[in-house]
């Protein structure tokens, strides 16, 4: 059956993989079957623990140390991959199939020049050295890397994340494989870079007539790339269908729930997903117009040695309001947030906690009855009454709790530390708080390692609530979570905000999440706020070119052809300036403010250079 034009190029039949742990077999993949026809892109989707990466490895005959195949076959171009000997495997990998991994920063050998690493894939083809060099050069050009002559002489650490991923793609394509396996190829990248890499892969796939197997947890990426989709859950395939069909009319309840859980950039509030996968968008409770300001930042600048991480940021936050800080990595959003939480004092500018009302905050022991205080100093220098008013929730639930202490202790400690509960009452209060974040209080005797990621994140939130804060700084709190868990945690945050009148500084790179939860958005880039405004205004535009680029790069879980979804145009940076400037009302350009364009209603945009890349200097 091999060699026939019409037969599937990749075929997985009843594949089962298990590994041994503690004397017992643990199944990671059970009876997985799917196929990919020549030239087709098939996506394998699932949340963590679904076994999708194991399947990807098996396509190349690769299993992790300790795992073994317990049944089934994998056929690539007619060859039974799992029964190949060492030599056969090498041939398969040099000729038929290649893989691009998640993190090119780890996948490239640090001690070798990237040119040499690409060239290695050509060794089996019997080319001369000069021919190889020429081929490497053309590959480097093909993947859109600048200045090929110089870049091949670089070491991986001298390249950016996006460039490294391009090198990895060149490496995979060097041997002209028939099948390309992409294992979470853009997960480690910023959204704009992600969009460009996906465009590149899609274009190259078409050009070389590649059959691709894309493994991803991101339904947006899948929708952008795949023709057919295989949904996996806990090692089993639950549904397989054409992309259009799957996204429009998912059949399996799990697929429906999964799809429904993904935040959409068009949602005007948080999505709530029922057990059967129906999706309702929760109405956003508007912040009252007379809500007092609780935090005020003026010209805050934060330096790391010579590097200016945050450059003159002025922002305000009102009671009960969610302010989202948006930007790519290195934009300074996390630095700003951590500074607010008292982990690093700003180099200049003012940060104040405003306590215009007492709001049940005056307890004995608060140095300042109103809780009005200076936040421009490190936590230890803040009076306890101010300190406990700003609390932090971390991105990574794995490291945010002390692994050697039961989780109740994590909540109990701030209660005792801030003097908010008597010794005898502290345990009960801690249990109450744990119940408040919708966790079973019985879990409070567990160690963090015995909880799931979502449960740990809830404990982290309970710990922040223990200080009875007015402001919670949430730093990418849902980034590390699976979408279904993310939806639940976001709903919890939204509930807490209304119940407790909390203000949130919500840091995220995911614009769809931001649209769902935030009242106002501040877009940061290179330490500057480039745009700030109410969430609806920012998402409907007009925008700063940088914001536009971020918005364009968002991938919706909806096939590209189906229309409606924003499509990635980020690969053409030249196109963005003109359109946006034109969209701005002309007379606004005459407003005297040399730095900002004010669009009214609190929506303002920083003026920019003609090329749309930087602030006007």
């Amino acid at each position, binding site marked *: 059956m091999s060699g026939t034009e019409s037969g599937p190029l990749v075929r997985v039949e009843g594949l089962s993989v298990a*590994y041994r*742990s*503690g004397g*017992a077999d*643990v199944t*990671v993949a059970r009876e997985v079957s799917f196929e990919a026809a020549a030239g087709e892109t098939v996506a394998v989707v699932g949340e*963590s*623990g*679904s*076994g*999708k*990466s*194991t399947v990807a490895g098996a396509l190349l005959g690769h299993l*992790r140390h*300790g*795992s073994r195949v317990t049944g089934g076959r994998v056929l690539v171009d007619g060859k039974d991959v799992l029964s190949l000997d060492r030599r056969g495997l090498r041939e398969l990998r040099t000729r038929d199939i290649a893989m691009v991994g*998640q993190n090119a920063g780890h996948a490239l050998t640090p001690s070798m020049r990237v040119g040499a690493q690409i060239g290695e894939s050509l060794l089996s083809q019997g080319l001369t050295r000069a021919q190889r060099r020429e081929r490497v050069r053309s590959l480097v050009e093909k993947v859109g890397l600048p200045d090929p002559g110089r870049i091949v002489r670089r070491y991986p650490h001298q390249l950016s994340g996006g460039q490294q991923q391009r090198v990895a793609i060149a490496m995979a394509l060097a041997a002209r494989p028939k099948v390309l396996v992409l294992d*979470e190829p853009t*997960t480690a990248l910023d959204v704009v870079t992600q969009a460009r890499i996906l465009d590149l892969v899609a274009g190259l796939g078409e050009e070389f007539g590649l059959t691709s197997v894309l493994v991803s*947890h991101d339904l947006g990426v899948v929708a952008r790339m795949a023709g057919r989709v295989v949904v996996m859950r806990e090692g089993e395939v639950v549904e397989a269908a054409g992309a259009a069909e799957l996204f429009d009319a998912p059949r399996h309840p799990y697929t429906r729930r999964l799809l429904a859980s993904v935040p959409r950039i068009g949602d005007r509030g948080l999505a709530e997903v029922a057990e059967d996968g129906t999706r309702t968008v929760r109405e956003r409770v508007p912040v009252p117009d007379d809500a007092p300001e609780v935090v005020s930042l003026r010209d805050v600048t934060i330096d790391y040695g010579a590097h200016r991480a945050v450059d003159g940021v002025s922002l305000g936050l009102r009671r009960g309001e969610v302010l989202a800080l948006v930007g790519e990595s290195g934009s300074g959003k996390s630095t700003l947030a951590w500074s607010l*939480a*008292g*982990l690093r004092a700003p180099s200049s500018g003012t940060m104040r906690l405003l306590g215009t009302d007492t709001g049940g905050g005056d307890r004995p022991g608060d140095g300042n009855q109103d809780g009005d205080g200076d936040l421009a100093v490190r*936590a*230890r220098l*803040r009076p*306890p009454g101010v*300190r*406990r008013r700003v*609390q*932090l929730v*971390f*991105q*990574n639930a*794995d*490291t*945010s*709790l*002390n*692994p*050697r*202490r039961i989780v109740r202790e*994590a909540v109990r*400690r*701030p209660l005792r*530390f*801030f003097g908010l509960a008597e010794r005898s009452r502290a345990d009960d209060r801690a249990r109450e708080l744990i119940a408040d974040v919708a966790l079973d209080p019985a879990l409070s*005797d*567990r*160690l963090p*390692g*015995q909880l799931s*990621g979502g449960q740990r994140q809830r404990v982290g939130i309970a*710990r922040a609530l223990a*200080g009875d804060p007015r402001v919670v700084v949430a730093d990418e709190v849902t980034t590390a979570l699976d979408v279904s868990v993310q939806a639940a945690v976001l709903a919890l945050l939204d509930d807490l905000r209304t119940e407790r009148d909390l203000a949130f500084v919500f840091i995220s790179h995911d614009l769809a999440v931001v649209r769902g939860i935030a009242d106002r958005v501040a877009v940061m880039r290179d330490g500057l706020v480039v745009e700030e405004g109410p969430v609806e205004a920012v998402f409907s535009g007009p925008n700063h070119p940088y914001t536009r680029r971020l918005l364009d790069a968002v991938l919706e879980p909806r096939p590209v052809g189906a229309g409606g979804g924003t499509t990635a145009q980020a690969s053409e940076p030249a196109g963005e300036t003109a359109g946006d400037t034109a969209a701005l009302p002309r007379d606004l350009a005459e407003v005297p403010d040399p730095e900002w364009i004010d669009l009214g209603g609190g929506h303002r945009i920083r003026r920019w250079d003609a090329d749309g890349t930087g602030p006007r200097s």
Partner: protein
Amino acid sequence: MTGSPHGASGPAETTGSTGTARTTLRSLARSTPAVVGLSLVALHVLLALLAPLLTSYSPTANDPGSALLGPGADHWAGTDAYGRDVVSRVLYGGRYALTVSFAATACAVALGTVVGCAAALKGGRLDDALMRVLDAILAIPPILALLVVVTVLGTGPAVIVLAVTVVYAPQVVRVVRAAALGVAPLDYVTAARARGERTVSILVREVLPNIAHVVSVEFAMRASWVVLLISSLSFLGFGANPPTPDWGLMVAENRTAMVVVPWATLAPIIALATLVVGLNLSADGLSRAWGVDRAKESS
């Protein structure tokens, strides 16, 4: 993506509410090397404790009449040149080796842990200066440093304990400091800092419990080195004073008569080697049970 089969989804983490201590014990019990190692150490401790019951010979009294005897019913491993029973000397030698090594290791590890943690958490200039001084101490070979101390202060168990502490504490500091530095940037420590906790309480509540395993492995490993170092020192004639029953000293005393009474040399060697193998295996077992990279720690 954690599609990894090893890790968060492992059954060790999901099954019930077993405590850390019990998990450790179980994984120790499962590992043959750990069981062998701990048994060897326990056996040595037991033999040292029961020495007076196991032999009726004095380890120090000379008996010229029965010098240089081969193994026999009276003397299982024969006698040395002074007519002392080899078995008795080896048994009592275990007492000396275990006490002095344990005391020295405990001092070095305790001092090293405190200083290492303080350096890691305080950081800054203090840390820089401290590391400089430690580098300088580490540049002097352990035996040499020991010999210098012994030259200046004379021999004797107390001096040995002090000298070993001086020599090994810096190495412990490095290991513990590295471990503490690994914990310091983690979010739960950051949370404590954001709360404004004092350094001491961060150290005790957040850091120490999470490097306890490193310190334990360090203890077992250091102990094996200390046993070796002390016996080397005795062998050279600068450790235990004759006629103290000490394994290193026994090898030194009897090696010239090795052809005549090989057991007088081999018995202490076997005792020494089994104790150190035991300590090494225990350290391996502990480090594996806790996932401490022992080879790296020792660097």
